[in-house]
């Protein structure tokens, strides 16, 4: 028996695999086995009812997708009443994603969803803070520290801060979230992007710009997850372009304690369970008893790999202390 369990951000998870917010819902209950997940993560909810963005809301790009869904929401009250109780029929813990446009509303919402049946709160701080010129909370370390502190005071539940990859210094934002009292970091949300229909000269999204996700972002988000795992001591949950167990392993190896799978489920409806199965198979095949042993196992020894099957002599390390081009 392979032990896939991990402790992560205040929760004990049966395995490190969970859905990414906005790509998962009760509608999938008939499609794959919910009991196989490490946790549930809901679509972000907002205090009030919202419509979301104009269509087209998605567009495909090479190896990825753009979305500008916005956050259509039935409001917090309806969510607490109608949705949360329905998750109690399954064992995995429920993580509720929340967002709001002011610190007050955000804190209120955190209180509202701190109810029986909710195991942790994921805070989507990639949304604009209307009290800070509309800049997203997670764009800067200061605003991140403040909002996390506010929310830390508002709830006793574990708090997972979901960062935005659009920040210039994600590692500093990660540290700030930890300082503010976050129990885990989700790295990261979608990357702001756009595409244009050359024939009509219109943006392919009704909202002009949208978030990029899927395999195309994986190398960028993996780098950020690695930087955050080095900068923070709280667990990092990798999220961005993970489609297969191999992708998940990359994130675990650079130091993530868990992963979220989003866009991949749109292409392969059973992607989440396939990743769990794949992790187990990988451990079995490589003689790993506990997935914990994979976490943070990145090998940084500088052996230049040799294309001809021998070890090449290491080159002068001093000459190598250069930036990437």
């Amino acid at each position, binding site marked *: 028996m392979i032990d896939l369990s991990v402790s992560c951000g205040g929760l004990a998870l049966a395995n490190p695999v969970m859905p990414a917010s906005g790509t998962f819902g009760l509608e*999938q209950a008939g499609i794959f086995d919910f009991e196989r997940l490490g946790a549930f993560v809901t679509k972000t909810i907002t205090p009030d009812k919202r419509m979301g963005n104009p269509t087209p809301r998605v567009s495909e790009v090479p190896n990825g997708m753009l979305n500008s869904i916005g956050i259509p929401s039935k409001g917090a009250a309806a969510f607490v009443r109608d949705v949360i109780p329905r998750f109690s029929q399954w064992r995995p813990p429920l993580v509720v994603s929340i967002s709001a446009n002011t610190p007050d509303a955000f804190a209120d919402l955190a209180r509202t969803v701190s109810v029986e049946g909710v195991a942790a709160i994921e805070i989507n701080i990639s949304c604009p803070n209307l009290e800070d010129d509309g800049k997203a909370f997670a764009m800067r370390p200061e605003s991140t520290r403040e909002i996390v502190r506010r929310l830390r005071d508002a709830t006793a539940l574990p708090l997972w801060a979901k960062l935005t990859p659009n920040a210039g210094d994600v590692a500093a934002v990660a540290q700030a979230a930890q300082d503010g009292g976050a129990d885990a970091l989700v790295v990261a949300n979608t990357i702001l992007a756009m595409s244009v229909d050359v024939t009509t000269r219109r943006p392919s999204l009704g909202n002009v710009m949208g978030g990029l996700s899927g395999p195309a972002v994986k190398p960028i988000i993996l780098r950020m997850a690695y930087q955050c795992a080095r900068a923070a001591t709280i667990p990092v949950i990798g999220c961005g372009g993970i489609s297969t167990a191999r992708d998940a392993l990359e994130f675990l190896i650079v130091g993530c304690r868990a992963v979220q799978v989003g866009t991949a489920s749109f292409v392969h*409806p059973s992607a989440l369970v396939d990743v769990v199965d794949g992790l187990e198979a990988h451990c079995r095949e490589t003689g790993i008893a506990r997935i914990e042993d994979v976490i943070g196992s990145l090998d940084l020894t500088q052996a230049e790999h040799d294309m001809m099957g021998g070890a090449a002599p290491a080159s002068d390390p001093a000459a190598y202390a250069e930036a990437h081009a």
Partner: protein
Amino acid sequence: MMMPMLDHDVVPPAAPAHPAPGRPVELEAVVREHVAVNDEYRYLSLDLPEGAPHAKPGQFYHLLCPTGDGLEPFFRRPMSVYRVEPEKNRLGFLYKVTGTGTAAMARLWPGDTFNLFGPLGIGFTLPADRAPIVLLGRGVGLATMGPLVPFARENGHRVTAILSARAPDLVMSVDEMRAAGADVITVTDAEGTSAVPHVEGILEDLVAKGACAALYVCGSSRLTRLAQAVAARHDLFGEVALEQQMACGVGVCFCCVRPFRENGETVHRRVCCEGPVFPLAEALA
């Protein structure tokens, strides 16, 4: 309502309840036949694996079109079932090559496998009382309407299909629909018969003759608005099959919404799981 219900897909006009769709699965179908129907449309027939669930008329599959040689569709593509043959464990699509995904699909050869996810969505409901129905379709809409003819006939409904196209050689399914027992009327731009007033005349005639107790429309906003007007005028049951770009296909991503009228308010509904077939009167077309 005291009328006998032939099937749980057959509901009284007053309160059309939607049947729950069969549980969708991801499966590898095998291409049986793949032919050009006319200059624009192709017919793809697939063998399904043993035990695969079968679609109801109006439901769709989400297709993983093959990648390669410069065509790299990322999303799945939604496609209505055109022919459902549960007894033979077969399925048919009628489709038009419009972009990357359908172009990739057009390269499938007999014997190739094709990854499908479905059946998805909510299909057509029939009125109670073996009431006569009228289908109104254009373009790709004909594909979606296809399986409604035998389904309605088997349930004892008289069916009239009004098929609209740019030119006579682009009208599809005329023979199939006739063979399945429908009265078929074709209208085309080339012959000048497809304009709204002319089609409206045909519909009014059918209503007057008692041949149109319910209206089904697909493939054209213009025709949808016409059908809405006629249905409202005569208080007819009606449904419309709608299209929207899809990512997940199962209701979680909220990309496939369209606007609807509900108690005087505009609301968004997801085409993939609250449709693709919707009450005619509520669609904002």
